[in-house]
C-alpha cells in the first residue's frame, strides 16, 4: 500500500468514525427529544386524568362483604338460651353491639347476662352478669345512637343503664382490646312489666329521662333532674308523668327520645306518631299527633333519630321507611310542622329495626324477611342491600365507624358484614340538584361544607358556586366587551398606524398586571369609594356621552388649519381631558342626584323600592376589576382580527361613498366577527378561571341572586379557600377536585371553540 492510499484510508477511517459519532449523537438527540416531548405533553394531559381519578370515588357505590357468620348457640356459654320462635317477645337475645375496631361484639340475654364475643368466630371472650338486676328479667332494651349507652327495662318496672368500655392496649405492636361494663343506677319507673323503653342521659346538665310503655298499657315518663343547688350530695329528683291520656287508647309500638331530652316521639299500632316537648321536665307538653303511614292502621314498627337528633326515621308494618323533620311553617302554633321529607325505597316485609350511623346521615333498616337496606337520608337514596338468607332480623347494630353491620336473625345466627362507604353523601342529585336539608322550608341549592359540630349536615351543592362563577364572568364581560371592542374598532379603523404602535403596548401592560393587585385595589380601595358614589357611577356613561357629543359638535367648527395639525385619529386624544372633566362633573352631581332622586340615601331607596340589599363588596366591583383584567385580552385579539381584514375592502367601501363609520360597522366588523367572537370567548374563559380578584373583591357568600349589588362565591375562589382545610381523601376534598374538573372542562371547551373559529378565520382571509 502506498503512503497516499494509507493516508486516504486513515482519512476515510477517521471520517467514518467521526460520522458514526455524529450519527450516534443524532440518534440520541432524536430519542431524547421524542421521549421528552411526548412526556411533557402527556404530563400536561395527565393533569386532567389525575383530577378525574380523584373524583371517581364520589360516585362509586358501597362495597360490602360478609366478614363472618356463626350460630350463637354453638358457643357453650350461650347454648342454653332459647329462641322460642313461636313468640317473638321471648327471643332470648335482646341487645347487640360492637366496638369501633369490629373485633369484639356483645349480646345481652333476658336473664341479665352480657356476653362479649369475638366477631370473627363467635367464641365467648368474657361474660358479665348485670348484677343490679338481681332477679328481674329484661323485657325491653334501648340503644343510644352513640353506641355506648344501652338501657334495659325489666319485668318489674325498673330501668338499668349500662355502659360498655373497651380498653385498648398495644402489646408487641398488636392491638389488644379488653371489654368491660359499667352499670348505672337502677331506677323504678312503673309497677308493671315494661314492654318498650327509651332512656337517654343529657351531657349538659347531668339529668336523664326514661320513657316506658308498660304491659298495662300506660305510657310513663320519668325524668331525673339534678338539683339546682349542689350543697352536699342530694339525690337527683325524679319526676314521673303519665302520658297515656293523649294516646286515646292506642297501643304504643315504638318510642324514641333525643339526647338533649327535649323531644319524645311515640309510634302506635294505628300508624300515628305522637310528639311531646320535654324541655320543661316539670310539665311535658303534648304537641301533636300525626298520621305517619300511607294507609291507616299500619303499625309503626321502628323509630330512630338520625345523627344530630333532628331527623326522625320511621319504619312501618308495610315495609315503608321514611325520613321526617320539622319544617318552618307560619300557620302552625309551634312555628313548624313535622313533615315527611323522603319516602325511601321500601323493604318487602314489616320493618324490624332501624339503626343510625354515628358518623354521617346514613342508617340501616331491617325487615322480617331478613333484608337489611343501607340508606342515606339527605340524598334520599338506598345504597346497599344485605340479606340474612331469609330469616327475620331480630337485632341490628351499626358499627361505630359506620364500616360494618351486625345482625342477629330469628334462628340465632349472627352475621357480621364489613362496609366500605367513604362518600355516602354525594350523588349527581346532591351535587347539582336541590336537596331538602334539615330545618329548611323546601329543597334548596346550598353550599355549606363545614359547621361547628361533628353532627353538622354537610351541604355540598356545586350549583351556587357554578352560578357565582357565571355571574362574575357575565358582569365582567358586560363591562369589558363594549369598551374593548369599541376601543379595538377605534384603533384599527380610525387611527393612524403609528399611533397603534404606542397604544398596543400600553394596553398590553394592562394584561401584565398581576390579578392580586387588581383584586386588592378593588376590595380595599375601590369598594369603599364606590359605596359612596353609586349614583355617580350610573350617571358617568350618560355624562360622558353628552360631553363627547358636545365635543364633536364643537370640533366641527374648529378651523381647518388647526384640524390639519392632528394626525389621523390623534384628535381623539382631546377626549382625555373631556373624560376627566366628565367624571369630575358626575362626582359633583352625585350629592344632588342622591338627594333628588333617591331621597338622600340610595341604599334605603334600593331596599325599600327595589328590595335590593347593597353589600360593600359586590358584583359591580368585581365587574370593574375582572373587566379590567379581561379588556386587554379581548382588545388585543379583536384588534388583530380587525386589522387583518384585507385593506381592499376598506378601500372599496370608502370609494363607493360610505363614511368611515359605516365602513367600520357594516363592512369590516361583520368580516372580522369570527375573530371578535373568538376574543370574547377567550376573555370569558379568563374571567371564569379568575381566582384572586373574586377572592378579594366579593363577599364570598354562596348565594344565588342576580342582583349586581351583592356578592357571590365562585368555584375557583372556593377551591382556594377550602382545599387546605379539606381532609385528604374525604368527601369535601373530592368534591373540590370535581369543582376543579368542571372549571377545567368549561375553560377548555370555550378555548377550543375560540381556537377553531380563529383557525377558520385565518383560512378565510387567505382566500379573500
Amino acid at each position: 500500500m502506498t503512503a497516499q492510499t494509507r493516508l486516504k484510508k486513515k482519512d476515510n477511517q477517521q471520517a467514518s468514525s467521526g460520522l458514526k459519532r455524529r450519527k450516534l449523537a443524532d440518534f440520541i438527540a432524536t430519542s431524547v427529544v421524542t421521549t421528552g416531548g411526548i412526556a411533557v405533553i402527556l404530563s400536561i394531559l395527565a393533569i386532567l386524568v389525575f383530577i378525574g381519578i380523584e373524583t371517581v370515588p364520589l360516585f362509586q357505590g358501597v362495597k360490602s362483604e360478609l366478614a363472618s357468620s356463626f350460630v350463637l348457640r354453638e358457643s357453650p356459654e350461650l347454648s342454653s338460651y332459647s329462641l322460642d320462635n313461636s313468640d317473638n317477645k321471648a327471643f332470648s337475645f335482646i341487645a347487640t353491639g360492637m366496638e369501633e375496631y369490629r373485633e369484639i361484639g356483645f349480646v345481652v340475654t333476658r336473664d341479665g347476662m352480657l356476653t362479649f364475643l369475638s366477631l370473627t368466630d363467635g367464641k365467648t371472650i368474657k361474660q358479665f352478669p348485670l348484677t343490679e338486676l338481681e332477679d328481674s328479667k329484661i323485657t325491653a332494651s334501648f340503644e343510644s345512637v352513640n353506641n355506648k349507652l344501652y338501657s334495659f327495662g325489666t319485668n318489674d318496672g325498673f330501668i338499668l343503664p349500662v355502659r360498655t368500655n373497651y380498653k385498648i392496649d398495644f402489646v408487641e405492636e398488636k392491638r389488644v382490646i379488653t371489654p368491660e361494663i359499667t352499670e348505672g343506677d337502677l331506677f323504678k319507673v312503673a309497677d308493671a312489666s315494661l314492654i318498650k323503653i327509651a332512656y337517654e342521659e343529657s351531657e349538659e346538665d347531668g339529668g336523664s329521662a326514661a320513657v316506658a310503655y308498660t304491659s298495662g298499657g300506660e305510657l310513663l315518663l320519668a325524668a331525673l333532674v339534678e338539683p339546682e343547688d349542689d350543697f352536699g350530695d342530694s339525690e337527683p329528683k325524679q319526676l314521673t308523668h303519665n302520658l297515656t291520656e293523649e294516646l286515646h287508647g292506642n297501643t304504643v309500638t315504638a318510642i324514641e327520645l333525643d339526647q338533649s331530652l327535649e323531644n319524645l316521639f311515640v309510634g302506635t299500632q294505628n300508624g300515628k306518631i305522637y310528639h311531646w316537648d320535654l324541655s320543661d321536665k316539670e310539665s311535658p307538653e303534648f304537641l301533636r299527633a300525626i298520621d305517619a303511614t300511607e294507609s291507616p292502621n299500619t303499625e309503626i314498627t321502628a323509630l330512630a333519630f338520625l345523627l344530630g337528633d333532628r331527623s326522625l326515621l320511621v319504619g312501618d308494618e308495610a315495609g315503608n321507611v321514611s325520613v321526617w323533620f320539622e319544617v318552618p311553617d307560619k300557620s302552625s302554633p309551634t312555628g313548624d310542622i313535622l313533615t315527611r321529607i323522603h319516602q325511601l325505597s321500601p323493604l318487602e316485609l314489616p320493618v324490624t329495626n332501624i339503626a343510625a350511623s354515628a358518623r354521617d346521615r346514613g342508617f340501616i333498616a331491617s325487615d322480617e324477611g331478613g333484608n337489611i337496606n343501607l340508606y342515606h337520608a339527605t340524598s334520599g337514596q338506598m345504597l346497599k342491600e344485605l340479606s340474612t338468607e331469609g330469616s327475620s332480623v331480630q337485632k341490628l347494630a351499626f358499627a361505630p365507624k359506620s364500616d360494618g353491620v351486625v345482625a342477629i336473625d330469628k334462628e340465632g345466627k349472627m352475621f357480621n358484614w364489613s362496609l366500605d362507604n367513604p362518600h355516602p353523601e354525594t350523588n349527581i342529585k346532591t351535587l347539582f340538584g336541590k336537596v331538602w336539608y334539615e330545618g329548611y322550608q323546601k329543597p334548596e341549592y346550598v353550599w355549606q361544607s363545614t359547621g361547628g359540630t361533628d353532627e353538622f349536615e354537610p351541604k355540598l351543592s356545586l350549583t351556587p358556586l357554578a352560578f357565582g362563577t357565571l355571574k362574575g364572568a357575565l358582569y365582567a364581560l358586560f363591562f369589558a366587551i363594549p369598551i374593548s371592542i369599541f376601543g379595538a374598532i377605534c384603533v384599527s379603523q380610525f387611527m393612524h398606524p403609528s399611533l397603534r404602535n404606542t397604544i398596543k403596548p400600553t394596553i398590553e401592560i394592562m394584561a401584565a398586571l398581576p390579578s392580586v393587585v387588581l383584586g386588592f385595589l378593588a376590595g380595599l380601595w375601590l369598594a369603599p369609594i364606590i359605596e359612596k358614589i353609586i349614583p355617580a357611577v350610573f350617571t358617568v356613561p350618560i355624562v360622558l356621552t353628552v360631553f363627547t357629543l358636545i365635543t364633536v359638535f364643537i370640533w366641527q367648527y374648529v378651523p381647518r388649519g388647526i384640524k390639519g395639525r392632528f394626525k389621523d385619529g390623534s384628535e381623539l386624544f382631546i377626549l382625555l381631558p373631556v373624560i376627566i372633566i366628565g367624571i369630575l362633573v358626575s362626582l359633583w352631581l352625585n350629592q344632588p342626584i342622591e338627594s333628588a332622586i333617591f331621597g338622600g340615601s340610595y341604599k334605603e331607596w334600593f331596599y325599600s323600592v327595589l328590595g335590593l340589599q347593597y353589600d360593600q363588596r359586590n358584583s359591580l366591583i368585581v365587574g370593574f376589576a375582572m373587566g379590567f383584567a379581561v379588556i386587554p385580552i379581548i382588545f388585543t385579539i379583536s384588534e388583530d382580527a380587525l386589522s387583518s381584514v384585507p385593506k381592499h375592502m376598506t378601500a372599496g367601501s370608502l370609494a363607493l361613498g360610505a363614511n368611515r363609520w359605516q365602513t367600520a360597522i357594516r363592512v369590516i366588523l361583520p368580516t372580522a366577527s369570527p375573530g371578535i367572537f373568538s376574543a370574547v370567548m377567550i376573555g370569558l374563559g379568563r374571567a371564569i378561571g379568575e381566582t384572586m380578584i373574586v377572592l378579594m373583591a366579593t363577599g364570598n357568600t354562596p348565594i344565588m341572586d342576580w342582583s349586581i349589588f351583592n356578592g357571590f362565591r365562585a368555584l375557583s375562589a372556593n377551591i382556594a379557600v377550602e382545599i387546605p382545610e379539606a381532609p385528604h381523601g374525604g368527601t369535601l376534598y373530592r368534591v373540590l377536585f370535581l369543582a376543579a374538573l368542571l372549571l377545567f372542562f368549561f375553560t377548555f371547551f370555550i378555548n377550543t371553540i375560540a381556537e377553531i373559529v380563529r383557525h377558520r378565520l385565518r383560512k378565510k382571509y387567505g382566500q379573500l
Partner: protein
Amino acid sequence: MNKFWKNGDPFVWLTGVALMFSLLMIAGLLWLIMAKGLGFFWPAGVTEFELQNDTKIMGEITAHEQIRGISGKSDTVEDKFRTQLKIGNRDLFGLDFRWIDDDQIVSQSEPKYAVVMERREWGNFYGFIKEITKNGAVICQGNEECWPKLEEDILVYANIYKQIRKIGKSEIGGINREIENYRLKIRGIELKGGNPEQIKQIEAKIADEENKYKEKEKELSVLYEEFTKEKVVMLSVDGREKEMALGNIVLAFRPNAMNWFQKASLYAHRVWGFVSDEPREANTEGGVFPAIFGTIMMVLIMSIVVLPFGVLAALYLREYAKQGTLVRIVRICVNNLAGVPSIVFGVFAVGFFIYGIGASIDSFFFSEALPNPTFGTGGILWASLTLALLTVPVVIVATEEGLAAVSQEIRHGSLALGATKFETTWKIVIPSAMPAILTGLILAIARATGEVAPLMITGVVKLAPQLPVDGYFPYVHLERKFMHLGFHIYDVGFQSPNVEAAKPMVFTTALLLILIVIALNLTAIVIRNRLKKKYTTSAV
C-alpha cells in the same frame, strides 16, 4: 342636525371614548399605586390639634373626608368634614387611628420638637423627649439636649440588636439544627432495630451541643443587659409618659424640623429598609425581603424546570413529529392549556405532588421525621413545579413560533451540506429561534410572578421562619415553605389584624410587584428586538 349624525363622526368619537377610557384607567391605576406606594416612605409632618373639650391630640394626617350621617344621608346643608389622624402609641391609646370632626378643632400647630419613632413593638410613637437614662441615671433632659444623644445612641443599639439577632438566629439556630438532626438520627436507628451503642454516642453529641447552647445563652444574656441599659422617657401629647429601651427603637426623626434634603435621605434609607429588612408586627411593618427572596428563588427554580421541558416539547412538535391531524390536535390542546385556570393546577399539585409524590418521598427518605411531613406538605419545590406546569404551554407556544419562523431553506441547506438533523437543530435552528425562546421564558416568568392562587395551596405562608437558602447542608432546602410578594399583598390586605395601618404597606408591595413584572416584560421586548437584529439572516 342630520348632517351631524350622517357622517358618522359622533359614533367614531364615542369609540374613541372607549379607548381613551381604557388608557385613562391604566394610567390612573399606575399613578394611584405609585403615589400611594412611594408616598408611604416620605416623612410626613406631625400636627398637633387642640380640641374643644380641652384635650390635645397629635399625629400624622392620613385622610380628610366629608361626613355622612348615620343613616347614610348627609347632614344639613353645610358641609361637615372630618380628619383621620394616625396617632400611634398603641400601647397607650389602644388604637392607631382616630377620626376627629373638623368643627371640634380649636387650633392646630406643627411642633418642631415632635419626634416620630418606629419601634420594634407597638408600632409608631409620636411624642416629645422628656429624658434619657443610662443604668438608671439621667444623662440628659428635654428635647434640645437629648435629641443628638438619641440619634447617636440609636445606632449603637442597632448594632447590639444585630449581634443579638446573629447569635439567636444563626448560632443558636445552628445548634438547634444539629440537635434536631441527631434526634432524627436516633429515631431512624430506633426504627431500624436500635443499636444502643450508636444511640449512646449520638446522645453524647447532643449533650455537647446543649453545653454549647448554654454558653451562647450566657452571651445573649450579657448582650440583653447591655441592650436595655439605656432608656428614653417619652412624653405623649396628652401628658402621659412612656419609658422604652433605646434598643427597641428602629428609627427616630423629627419631621417638622427636617429640611427637604434630610427628608430625602431618610426617604432613601426607608426605601432600602423596605427592600432589605424582615417584616415586623404581623407583616404590617418592616420590610419584605423574605418575600422578594422567596419570589425570586421560586421563579428561578421554575425557569430551570420549564425551559428545557418546554423547548423539548416544542422541538418535538415542530421538528420531529410527523405533521398531521394528531399533531394539530395536540397543538390546540397545548395552546388551550394556557387558558386553564391556575387554581386547577394548584389542585392537581395538592393531590399529585404533595399527597402523592411527597408522601412517598417522606416514607422512603424521611421516615424518622414522620408523622411530621417533610415533602408531604407544601414547599418551594412543589410551588415551583406547579408554576412550571402552568407556564410550560407559554414556552411551548413561543418556541414553536420561533422555530416556525426559521425558513425551511436554511434547514435544507444545512442538511444538504452533510449535517445531521441534530446538528442542524442544535447549531442553526435553535440559535435562530433563541429570541423567541427567551421571550417565551420571560413571558412565563412574568406570568408566574403574578400568580398567587396556586401558590396559596402549595407552600406559601404568611411568615416563614427561615429562608429556603442558608448556610447548612444541603444549602438549598426545597422542602421549606416560603414567602411570596403576591401572597403578601393578599395576606396583609385581607388577613391582618390592623388593615388600616397595613394599607400603605400593601400599596408599596403592589408597586414593587408591578415594577418587577413590567421590568420583566420590557426585558422580553428588548431582548427579542436585540437578538432579532443579531440573528436575522440577510435577505436571500
